[in-house]
C-alpha cells in the first residue's frame, strides 16, 4: 500500500501520460479512421485503393515494429519531434486502421433506402455520406469504436518502453527505489483498469444516449 501513498506524484504523472496518449491518439485515430473509411467507399478508385492499402498495411504491422520505425527510425531521417508526439502518431495511425474498419462496417448497416433517398434528393456523395449515412452509422459504430479505443489505451503501454512518460514505465524508478515489485504492478494494473473502465463507462453512456434498437 505504501508504494502508492509514498509515490503518488510518480503514479499520477504516469497515469496522466497514459490518459494523454489515449485521448490524443484516440482523437487522431478517429479523425483519420473516418476519413479513410470515406475514401474506401468513395466513387474514385484511386482513393479506394489508397484506403485499402492504408488499412491492410497498418492492420498487419506489429505495433512494436511501428514504434521502432517511428520513434527510432524517423529521427535518422532528419525528423526530430518530442517522443510523446511520435508515440501519438504511431498509436493514432495504427488504431485508425481499426477505426476505419469499424466505421465501414457501420456504413453497411445503414439501410440502402437512406442512401437512395439522399441521392434522389440530389445530394452529392459527400453530402449523402456526411449528412445522411454517417450520422446514422454512428449509432451502430459506438460499441466497436469503444472497444477499439480501450485496446488503444492498453496498447499505449508500449510507449513506456520507448522513453515516453506513462503508467507502465513507472515500474522502473520504483524498482530502483527498492519497493515491492508485486505491489508496484498491482497499482499499475489498477491505473490501467481506471482508464479502461472509465472509457467503457463513457461509451456505455453514449450508446444509451445515441443507440437505437434496429
Amino acid at each position: 500500500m505504501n508504494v502508492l501513498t509514498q509515490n503518488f506524484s510518480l503514479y499520477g504523472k504516469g497515469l496522466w501520460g497514459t490518459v494523454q496518449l489515449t485521448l490524443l491518439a484516440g482523437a487522431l485515430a478517429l479523425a483519420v479512421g473516418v476519413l479513410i473509411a470515406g475514401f474506401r467507399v468513395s466513387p474514385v478508385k484511386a482513393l479506394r485503393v489508397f484506403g485499402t492499402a492504408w488499412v491492410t498495411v497498418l492492420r498487419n504491422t506489429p505495433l512494436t515494429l511501428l514504434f521502432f520505425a517511428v520513434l527510432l527510425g524517423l529521427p535518422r531521417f532528419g525528423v526530430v519531434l518530442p517522443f510523446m508526439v511520435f508515440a501519438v502518431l504511431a498509436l493514432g495511425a495504427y488504431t485508425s486502421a481499426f477505426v476505419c474498419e469499424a466505421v465501414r462496417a457501420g456504413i453497411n448497416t445503414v439501410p440502402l433506402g437512406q442512401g437512395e433517398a439522399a441521392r434522389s434528393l440530389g445530394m452529392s456523395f459527400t453530402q449523402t455520406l456526411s449528412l445522411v449515412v454517417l450520422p446514422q452509422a454512428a449509432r451502430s459504430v459506438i460499441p466497436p469504436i469503444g472497444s477499439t479505443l480501450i485496446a488503444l489505451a492498453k496498447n499505449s503501454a508500449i510507449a513506456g518502453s520507448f522513453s515516453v512518460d506513462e503508467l507502465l514505465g513507472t515500474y522502473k524508478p520504483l524498482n530502483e527505489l527498492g519497493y515491492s515489485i508485486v505491489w508496484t504492478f498491482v497499482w499499475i494494473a489498477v491505473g490501467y483498469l481506471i482508464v479502461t473502465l472509465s472509457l467503457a463507462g463513457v461509451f456505455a453512456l453514449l450508446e444509451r444516449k445515441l443507440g437505437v434498437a434496429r
Partner: protein
Amino acid sequence: MTASSALYDIPGPRALARHRLYAWITSAVLALLVAFVVYKLVDTGQFSAVKWRPFTYEGIQRLLLKGLANTLRAFGWAALASLVFGVVFAAGRLSDHRVLRWASTLVVEFFRAMPLLVMIFFIFIALKLDPLLALIIGLTLYNGSVLAEVFRAGVNAVPRGQREAAYALGMRKTQVMTYVLVPQAARAMLPAIISQLVVALKDTSLGYLITYQEFLYSGKLIATNLDYDLPFIPVVMVIAPVYIGMCMLLSWSANRIARHERRSPRTKGTEVTTQLPDEI
C-alpha cells in the same frame, strides 16, 4: 460494393470526367509524397553502401534468420497453448456448475482487461522467468482468454434446434457438446481463430521489449551498430515486409476459409465470421 454503391449514382460522362480528375489529383499527391520520401531517403544517405553492406554478411543473415526462427517458435508455442487455454476456459464458461462458470468468467475477463505488456513485464520482472517463457505465458493468457470468448460465442451461435435434437436423441451433455455442437462451431469459428492468431503473431514482437532475441531484436542489434553507420531505416525496410507478409498470409487464409465455409452446407445456419470480440 453492393451496399456502398447506394452512396452515389452510376456516374454519367461529366461525373466520370470529374472522378478522373480526382483520381489524377490523388495519384499526383501520392506520387509527390513518395518522391519526397525517396528524396529524403537518398538525401540522408539511407541507400549508402555502408548501411546496406551488413545484410551481405553471412553472420548477419544468420542472426536475422535466428531471430525469425525465435519469433516463429514463440508464436507456435503461444498459439498451441492459447488454443488449449481457450478450450478449457470456454468449457468452464459453458459449464452447468455455477462455481466453475464464475471462476472461468473472472479469469477470462481479467486477462482480457489487462494490457498484454503489463502481464509480460510482470511475469518477466516479478516472477523472474526466462524471456521466452514470459512472452509465451503472457501471449497465452491474453489470446487464450479472447479465444475462450470466440469458442463460447461459436458454440452459442449453433442453431438451438441442433442441441435440442441431440438431447431428444438421448445424448448426454458431453456427447451433445463433442459430437454435435463443437464440430459445427469449430468450422464456423475457424476464420475468427486464425484472425486471433494473427494478433498473437503480431504481439510476439513485444518480446523485443523484454530482450527476447526475436526478429525485431535481431534488427535492433544490427541497427544500433556504429560500424554500419546506424542503419535503422534499412533494417526497417528489411524487417517490415517480412512481418507484414507473414501476417497478411495468415489474414488472407482466414478470409479464404471464411468464404469457403459460408458456402459449405455443413455450417448452414451458423454465422461464419472473422470478427472478434476485440481484435487489436
